[in-house]
């Protein structure tokens, strides 16, 4: 692989990781809930896209547009039905974190179990836009370019939503100062549910993007959740730009290791980076820490 190949591969992967992490950082930053089942809600839309393409002959782009509102609703419901009772039981704070970790851990198992029953443990994939494209002397599959483009577009969209709209400002306010937000009339629970939904839309879109160019299986959710968590912490909780940069770091690191050392060591790279950040700058490379 030459430098350009690495650049393209790394940035596609990095952009994807950044997008995945953005959804989680919005969820965690606003609702203060660590959603360990996040990865399952990436794989599920991937399967949905797979069904859509192979069984119903639909375009993945159409699936992408479909899962955005679907993902929003699902995660919004998860917050309202599953997580609100915990918030009510423990208030916000360390006890809520423990309870929500456990609850989402259980949810992860259930969702993964359902997908295992429905689809089995094998890898699935479909071909879409795998035609090679020539860019600056380097060949890359068109679907990867599409993934990179959509990831950037969605990330930008989320950023604009959070910074230019009133709802977005409310979301950011709760993220920064959850105890004081009610003082200015903000309904924290409503906003947290909203943030969960926004994260759900992001992760669902990411799932469809993943399905476009990576083979996936029902058991892969855990790995994506872990990478998302690592990127979120590295970038600083609640920091969208941090997610993108940290995601890029991770994407490039993985690509480099896969190319020059061994593709079987990607998780080790993840952890090495994570360990490095924890030892040197636990508050994240670019922003506030986990608490």
């Amino acid at each position, binding site marked *: 692989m030459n430098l350009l190949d690495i650049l393209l591969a790394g940035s596609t992967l990095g952009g994807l990781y950044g997008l995945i992490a953005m959804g989680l950082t919005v969820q965690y930053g606003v609702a203060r809930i*660590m959603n*360990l089942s996040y990865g399952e809600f990436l794989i599920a839309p991937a399967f949905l896209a797979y069904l859509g393409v192979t069984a119903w002959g639909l375009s993945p782009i159409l699936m992408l547009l479909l899962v955005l509102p679907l993902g929003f609703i699902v995660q919004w419901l998860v917050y309202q039905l599953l997580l609100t*009772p*915990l918030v009510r*039981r423990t208030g916000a704070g*360390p*006890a809520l*974190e*423990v*309870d929500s*970790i*456990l*609850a989402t*851990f*259980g*949810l*992860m*198992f*259930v*969702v*993964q*179990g*359902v997908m*295992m*029953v429905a689809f089995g443990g094998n890898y699935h994939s479909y071909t879409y836009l795998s035609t090679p494209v020539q860019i600056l002397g380097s060949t890359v599959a068109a679907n990867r370019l599409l993934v990179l483009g959509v990831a950037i577009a969605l990330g930008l969209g989320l950023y604009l939503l959070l910074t230019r709209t009133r709802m977005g400002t409310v979301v950011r306010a709760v993220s920064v100062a959850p105890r004081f937000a009610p003082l200015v009339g903000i309904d924290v629970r409503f906003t947290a549910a909203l943030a969960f939904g926004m994260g759900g839309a992001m992760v669902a879109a990411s799932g469809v993007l993943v399905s476009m160019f990576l083979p996936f299986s029902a058991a892969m959710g*855990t*790995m994506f*959740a*872990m990478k998302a*968590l*690592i990127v979120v*912490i590295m970038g600083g909780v609640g920091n969208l730009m941090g997610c993108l940069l940290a995601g890029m770091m991770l994407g490039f690191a993985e690509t480099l290791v896969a190319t020059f050392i*061994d593709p*079987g*060591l*990607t*998780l*080790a790279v*993840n*952890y090495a980076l*994570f*360990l490095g950040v*924890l*030892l040197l700058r*636990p508050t994240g490379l670019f922003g506030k*820490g*986990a*608490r």
Partner: protein
Amino acid sequence: MSRRDAMAWGAGALALAGLATVPQWMHNDYYLSLLISVLMYSVLASAWALFSGPTRYVSLATVAFFGVGAYTTAVFGETLPWAAVLLIALGLGVAMALVVGLATLRLSGVYFVIFSFGLAELVKQLVTWYEVNITKDLGRYVFVDITAQDIYWQLLVLLALVLGLRAWIARTRLGLALRVIGEDETVAVHVGINTTRVKVLLFTLSAAFMTVAGAIMAPRWTYLDPTIAFAPAISFQTLIMALLGGAGSLFGPLLGAVPLVLLFEFLSANFPNHFAILVGLVFMVIVYAVPNGISGWLRRRKHHGGGK
């Protein structure tokens, strides 16, 4: 030691002696196997509660240590004496726990949880890489000359050790430090407790038990590969059992292990495909309905007067 305490220790020793005789008269292999499972999960759940109970740092990494122990047996079981195998497993578990602990336990619990979440996956990937590239053989056969009875007794000893340790710690300054940390870590630090050291110590002890348990259990699976050794279900089930029984009390994890081992045995035999879903649902019911576990529920009933 007060008379009440002496009687409690005495009763415990008696129960232990009684349990030790079981393999002598129980000739049914299936029931013995079930008992071994109960013992294994009792050890794992108690070891889990040893650290995660008082500190409220939820560890999702049980199988990372268990699998390392199992692999130690697979690798060294044929060439080294059994005691050496267990010692190596112990050393590996301690080393891993120290690395993880020192890196994450001086920060807030969230980092630890994230780290532990993927730790098993990481170790599994590393072992896979090693097996694929260096030894060129992904699976291993575990040929160790050990009977089911031997495994039973070793697990029983391990259980006695972990319960004894928990009981002993609870009456020492360390136990008080743990309770304070679990209540409010800021206060803990301001009364002079070196919270990082306490947490790392407990985590390492917990990991040591889990690793040795894995080493002891490995001969039960005659064939081992990374997916089998590092199965997420083990972490999950350990967690459920400790939570159901109540991680705060001494016998809580056993109260959770016994019914759930039987339940899971039933479920996996009758609903093999839906096992994960059912286990997940059981878990969520426990989290929502019995957050402090059975022992917590019993304690609350005692406090509010038994006459309800």
